[in-house]
C-alpha cells in the first residue's frame, strides 16, 4: 500500500512521552495503522514503557499489557491461549520490544514462543542500544560504537538476530526500517494476515543514543540501508527476498555507500575520526559488511 492510502486512524495518541525525533513512535504509528484497533500490545521494559506515559494516562488506543523485560513473548503466548479459549480469533497479539529485550534478555522466551508456534507478531524495534537505561551496549550494537559501557567503542560485531529467527522456520520473518514507511506498513500487514509466529525487526535510529540531530532520524535509517549496515528483507516460508535498495545491493545493481557516509553523522562513532582517523577500525567495519553481503549473496541470491 502507498503512503497516501494508509489509514488516517491513529492508535498512538498525541502528547506521548517520547523524545523529539524518536524512531520508536514513527514505527509504532505505522505498525498500529497496519494492525488496527483489534490489537493487543505486549510491551516489556523498553523506551515504549515510557512513551506510554504516566498512569493514569496512556498514549495508546489499543489495550496494552506491560510485562517484565525478558517476558514479552511468554506473556503473549498466554494471551493468545486465553483468547483462543474464549473463541476470540480476530484479535492480533503483537509484542513490541527493543533490541535489548529481544537479542539479549528476552531471547529465550522469544525462541520458546516461536518454537511453540504461538500465533502472534513479535516486533523488535532495534535502536542498537539499551536506550531506556541510558545508552548501554546490547547484542545489536555495531562494532566500534560508543556506548556508556563501551567507552572506547564496542569490540564485537552485532549478532544476526534475523537469521537466528529464520532458523526457527516460522512462516514469516522480516527486517525493515522506519525510514521506509511503506516497507514497514506492508510487512506488518503481511505478518498480520499469516497464522502462526511472525517476527518483524525495525531498525530505529535513536538521536540521543547514536548522537545525531533529531532532524536526521529518517536520513540515518536510509543511510544504514544504503551503506549495507542494515538490510531490508523478508523470509516467507523459508523463501528469502531482499527488498528495495537492499535487493539492488544484493544483485550488485548498485554499489553500497562507504560506511563513513552513515557513521560520520553519529557522535557514537566520533572517536573514529578525532583526533585522527582510525583507519584500522574503519577498514574492519567495511570488511565486515562486505563479508556479510558476500554471505547473503551465497545464501540468498537465486542461482
Amino acid at each position, binding site marked *: 500500500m502507498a503512503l497516501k492510502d494508509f489509514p488516517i486512524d491513529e492508535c498512538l495518541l498525541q502528547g506521548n512521552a517520547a523524545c523529539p525525533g524518536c524512531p520508536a513512535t514513527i514505527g509504532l504509528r505505522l505498525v498500529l495503522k497496519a494492525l488496527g*484497533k483489534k490489537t493487543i500490545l505486549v510491551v516489556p521494559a523498553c523506551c515504549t514503557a515510557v512513551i506510554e506515559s504516566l498512569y493514569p494516562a496512556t498514549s495508546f488506543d489499543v489495550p496494552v*499489557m506491560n510485562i517484565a523485560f525478558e517476558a514479552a513473548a*511468554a506473556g503473549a503466548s*498466554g494471551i493468545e*491461549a486465553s483468547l483462543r479459549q474464549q473463541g476470540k480469533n480476530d484479535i492480533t497479539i503483537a509484542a513490541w520490544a527493543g533490541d535489548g529485550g529481544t537479542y539479549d534478555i528476552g531471547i*529465550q522466551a522469544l525462541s520458546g514462543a516461536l518454537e511453540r508456534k504461538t500465533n502472534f507478531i513479535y516486533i523488535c524495534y532495534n535502536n542498537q542500544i539499551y536506550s531506556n537505561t541510558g545508552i548501554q551496549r546490547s547484542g545489536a550494537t555495531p562494532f566500534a560504537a560508543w556506548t556508556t559501557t563501551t567507552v572506547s567503542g564496542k569490540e564485537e560485531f552485532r549478532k544476526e538476530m534475523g537469521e537466528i529467527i529464520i532458523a526457527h522456520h516460522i512462516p514469516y520473518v522480516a527486517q525493515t526500517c522506519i525510514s521506509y514507511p511503506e516497507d514497514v506498513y506492508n510487512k506488518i500487514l503481511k505478518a498480520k494476515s499469516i497464522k502462526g509466529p511472525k517476527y518483524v525487526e525495525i531498525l530505529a535510529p535513536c538521536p540521543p543514543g547514536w548522537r545525531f540531530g533529531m532532524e536526521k532520524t529518517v536520513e540515518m535509517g536510509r543511510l544504514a540501508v544504503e551503506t549495507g549496515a542494515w538490510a531490508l528483507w523478508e523470509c516467507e516460508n523459508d523463501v528469502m527476498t531482499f527488498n528495495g535498495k537492499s535487493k539492488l545491493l544484493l544483485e550488485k545493481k548498485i554499489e553500497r555507500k562507504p560506511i563513513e557516509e552513515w557513521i560520520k553523522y553519529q557522535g557514537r562513532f566520533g572517536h573514529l575520526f578525532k583526533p585522527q582517523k582510525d583507519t584500522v577500525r574503519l577498514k574492519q567495519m567495511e570488511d565486515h559488511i562486505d563479508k556479510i553481503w558476500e554471505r547473503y549473496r551465497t545464501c540468498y541470491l537465486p542461482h
Partner: protein
Amino acid sequence: MTIIIDTGNRIAAKAAIMAKPAVVAAYPITPQTTLVEAIAEYVATGEFKGDYICVESEHSAMSACIGASAAGSRTFTATSSHGLLLMHEMLHWAALARLPVVMCNINRVVGPGWNIWVDENDSISQRDTGWIQFYCSSNQEIFDTVIQAFKLAEHEKVVLPVMVNLNAFILSHTSMPADVPEQRIVDDFLGSYVPKWKLDIENPITFGNIIGPDYYYKVRKAMQDAQDHARKLIPQISREWKKLSGYYHGDLLELYKCEGAEYILLSMGAIGAESKIAIDNLQKTGHKIGLARVRVIRPFPIEEIIALGKQADLIVIDRNISVGLEGALFSEVKTALYGESEADVHGFIAGLGGKDVTYKDIETMCTKAMKGKTKHQIWYGVEE
C-alpha cells in the same frame, strides 16, 4: 463422591483440571513432574479441554499465566524449588498486577548441592511477593485446598494469586486416598471465572505503565487490604466447602486437641500431620499439649496465634531457616505475640535437606521444650 487412591501430585492435577482453568502453562522440575504429566494425560484423554502451554522455563510459565489471566482466563501452574525461585520476579508481577493465578509448589530443597527432598525454604523465601500461601498435610487436603484456592484467588475482595504448597515426596509421591466430589459440586462452588478487569479491545486500557509514588503507594496498600480480606474469607470458604464436600482441614490454623492445653505446638506441611501422632502420644502420658497446624502463612493468622499465646506456651517447628536470623514461623509467631502475650515461645529447626522428622522426633522436641530448656531456637538432629 468417589474415593481415589493416588499421589499428592496426581490428586493436585485432578483438582486443578476439575476447577476448569482455560490455560495451564508449566515447565517440568523434580518432584513436580508427575503433576504436569498428569495434566498432559488429561489433555490426551480430552478430560482437560483448556490450553496446556509447554513453556521453555518457569519464568515463562508464570509469564504465560500472567498473560492468560490478564486476558481474562482462569489459569493454573505448578513448580518446585529452583523453578519457584526462577519465577520470583514474575511472582511479584502476578501479585502486583492483581491476577488470580493458582499454583502448586512442591516444597523441595534449594541447591547447591543438588537435593530433591523436602524443606520449605523455597516457598518461605517467597513470603513477601504478595501471594497467599497454603501448606497441606494430606492428599485430601491437597485436593480440597486447590479447589478452595481458585475460589479465594478470584474473590472480588481478594484478586490475588494463591500458592498451594505440598511437601516433596512425603506428599507429592505418596499414594493416599482422597474423596473426589462430582464435577457439578466443583462447578457450583467455583462458578465460571468472571475477571474484574481484562485486556479488552472494546475498552483499551494500558496495564502496568509507569506509576508515580502516590498511586504506587495505594497499589501496595490495596494488596495488603486484599490479604486482610483473604484472612476473613479463608474460614468462610473452608466451611462452605465442608458443607458441599464434607471435608474440612481447618481455617488458617487447624487446631488439634488444644482444649486445656498448657503447651501448643505449631508446625506446617507433612510435619503438621506427623505432629498429630506426637500429640496423641504425649497426651496419653499426661502432657497437656495440643497442636495448631499452620495451614496458611500469608495472610498470617495473627489473631488466632494471639489467642493461642493467651492460652499456652508455644513450641514452633520450622522446616526452613532465614539464615542469619532463625526459622520463619518462629519469628512470625513471636511478632504476632508482641505486646499481646507473655507466653514462652520455643523454636526448633528440623528436617532441612529432607532429613526425616518422625512423630518420635516431634515428641522429643516437645518434651525438651516442656522442660523449659529451649529459650533460643535449637537445631534438632544436627550431628555435632
